[in-house]
């Protein structure tokens, strides 16, 4: 398994850089992954990240439609927060696996 040091911690990551173990995630790790992508995280971003982590832990198959119905942000807002990858970037920053979803 690949290892990567993010925010001073050595983490297990997949070849695309997604955390293998969501439990290793911290806010500092989120900030660093977001920085690599070119996104500066705000409180709104963290609300979305917490939602994704909670849903992932509950075993939900994630989609942008589900985030759009979360009451945190609509789909347009999600695209504004995570340009070019509303689901793949948000999941990466949230420290969960890349969602296997076309919606």
């Amino acid at each position, binding site marked *: 398994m690949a290892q990567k040091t993010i925010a001073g911690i050595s983490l297990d990551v997949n070849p695309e850089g997604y955390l293998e173990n969501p439990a290793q995630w911290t806010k500092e790790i989120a900030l660093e992954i977001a920085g690599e992508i070119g996104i500066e995280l705000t409180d709104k971003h963290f609300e979305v990240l917490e939602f994704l982590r909670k849903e992932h832990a509950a075993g939900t198959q994630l989609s942008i439609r589900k985030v759009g119905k979360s009451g945190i942000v609509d789909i347009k807002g999600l695209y504004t927060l995570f340009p070019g990858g509303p689901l793949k970037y948000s999941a990466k920053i949230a420290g969960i696996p890349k969602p296997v979803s*076309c*919606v």
Partner: protein
Amino acid sequence: MSTETKERSLKKVCIICAKGTIEDVYATLVLANGAVMEGIDAKLFFTFFGLDAITKKQMNKIHTGTVGNPAMRMPGGLPFPSILGILPGVEAGVSAMMKSQMDKLDIPPVGEFLEMITAGGGEVYACKLAMDMFKLEAKDLWEGCSGVLTVGDFYSMCGGENTQIIFT
């Protein structure tokens, strides 16, 4: 000279939808949504019967054809006799079943799907010639439609590096 070619990522897809069945319309919508979710520009052009997908009256009533489709099977996988497909109500029943399956997979109704695509920056256009043919006016179209175009207008949007035109 090196013969090595470097793969460059896709930047834009221009998708043409000319048919109004569930499978044709959804193929278009899934391809377009999948593109914007990956940061790829998407331009959609609806023409002929595909116009149903962006016509207010029809967009949420689209059906799948139950005749002349050899891949159509009964639940459980048995063949679906073509003669059944012509019975009143069968097409509607099969279509309702497909829509309920899609709903379980979080695939939204047509109107909501189009909104998701435009929320991600995708653009939706109607074909001028087909509009004239079906006697449709701009007011008949879904509100999020960006305009009515000639083929030439649409092609003028399909330029640029790493752009693909897809005909569903």
